[in-house]
């Protein structure tokens, strides 16, 4: 039976889930950085490169949200409120009300952007720069952002078809919008539901850093006799200390850390399938890493 013309046109249209192009052979949706399998509800590769065998950075990690540590999930498994413009991370577009108010929640977990040089950076959106342009096909939001390391910034765009169709109300027609109070501080680290306290560092294999490694060259002072510990339920060896230190040193050197203000910093790296959270500070005597915790990779 012949499909009605309109139906046939829809089936042939390559743009599918959230407007992304679907590969006709694989059936996967192309999100720029990664392919998304809509039948499985997950990305086909982890966010950022890496298969867990080598250290790499986890710039999208949000200590408040364990879902952010699932590198295969789509918009932290919350597609009702989050969208993914580039396959890396999400910006919340939570409220398209008919009374003319658009609310964008740009939390830290969703404030990851492509920098001006195309490098993926972890940063925050400036709430004062968000703009909205309404057209017949939907609404496009623009914003400026600053990376957590303060070294790079730029602008980003996300196209979001409103839930109610073209936005109504004078405020939206004028491109006016409000941005909810963005919490620009990483305030929490709910990496696991239960964090064991004081498990000794022996659970993480010993071994110092080799002279040729990033950590050795960095001059970073590691003070981890107390701090290096792992979450409950993972008594097996998770990663080797030298590899952890190298990953941390690389993260610090590349600016893939979060600074809530002042000299202190925190960050997350992945080493041998384990998420490693670390804290430290830029002191007068150099960089000091004072605390390291690990959590098994969620896949």
């Amino acid at each position, binding site marked *: 039976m012949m499909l009605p013309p309109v139906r046939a046109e829809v089936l042939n249209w390559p743009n599918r889930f959230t407007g992304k192009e679907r590969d006709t052979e694989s059936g996967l949706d192309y999100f720029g950085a990664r392919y998304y399998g809509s039948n499985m509800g997950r990305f086909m590769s982890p966010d950022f490169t890496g298969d867990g065998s080598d250290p790499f950075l986890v710039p999208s990690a949000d*200590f408040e949200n364990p879902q952010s540590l699932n590198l295969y999930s789509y918009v932290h498994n919350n597609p009702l409120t989050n969208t993914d413009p580039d396959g890396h991370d999400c910006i919340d577009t939570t409220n398209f009300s008919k009374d003319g108010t658009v609310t964008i929640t740009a939390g830290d977990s969703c404030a990851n952007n492509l920098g001006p040089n195309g490098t993926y950076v972890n940063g925050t959106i400036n709430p004062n720069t968000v703009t909205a342009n309404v057209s017949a096909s939907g609404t496009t939001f623009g914003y400026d952002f600053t990376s957590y390391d303060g070294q790079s910034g730029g602008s980003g765009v996300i196209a979001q078809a409103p839930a109610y169709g073209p936005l109504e109300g004078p405020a939206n027609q004028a491109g006016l919008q409000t941005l909810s109070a963005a919490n620009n*501080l*990483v*305030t*929490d*680290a*709910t*990496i*696991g*539901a*239960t*964090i064991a*306290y*004081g498990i000794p560092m022996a659970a993480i294999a010993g071994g110092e850093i080799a002279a040729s490694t990033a950590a050795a060259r960095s001059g970073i*002072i590691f*003070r981890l*006799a*107390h*701090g290096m510990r792992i979450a409950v339920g993972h008594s097996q060896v998770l990663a080797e200390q030298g590899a952890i230190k190298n990953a941390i040193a690389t993260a610090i050197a590349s600016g893939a850390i979060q600074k*809530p*203000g*002042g*000299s*202190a*910093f*925190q960050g997350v790296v992945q080493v041998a399938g384990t998420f490693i959270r670390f*804290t430290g*500070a830029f*002191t*007068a*005597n*150099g960089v*000091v890493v*004072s*605390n390291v*915790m690990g959590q098994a990779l969620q896949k």
Partner: protein
Amino acid sequence: MEPRALTERERGWISDILRANDEWQEADISRTQVVAEERGEEGVSFILQAPEPENPKAKSGRESVGNLWIQTADGSSINVQLSQIEGRLRELYVLFVDPKHPERSLPENWTEVSREAANV
């Protein structure tokens, strides 16, 4: 050791860290005591205990309440880490870092040059 009250120095450290964490600003440490103390290679650990959770409204599962970084006149750094479980303060860990003399342990006294609390 017998449980003891917090010293003024310890209370000051904890208060500074609590002020840097929105969720812990209202925590009550008036009945918090030190119930154990252990000196390690790099720092000193003080185990804390109170009859009731200092912050019963705490929602965070994060172990760390925050850090305090102190720079001293002799070029050393002191990192004070405060941790919790389920709204109860658990440990005050004082890490001493003297890059010129790595074997040096936490001295009894020092002169502060700067102090900074952070919610990390």
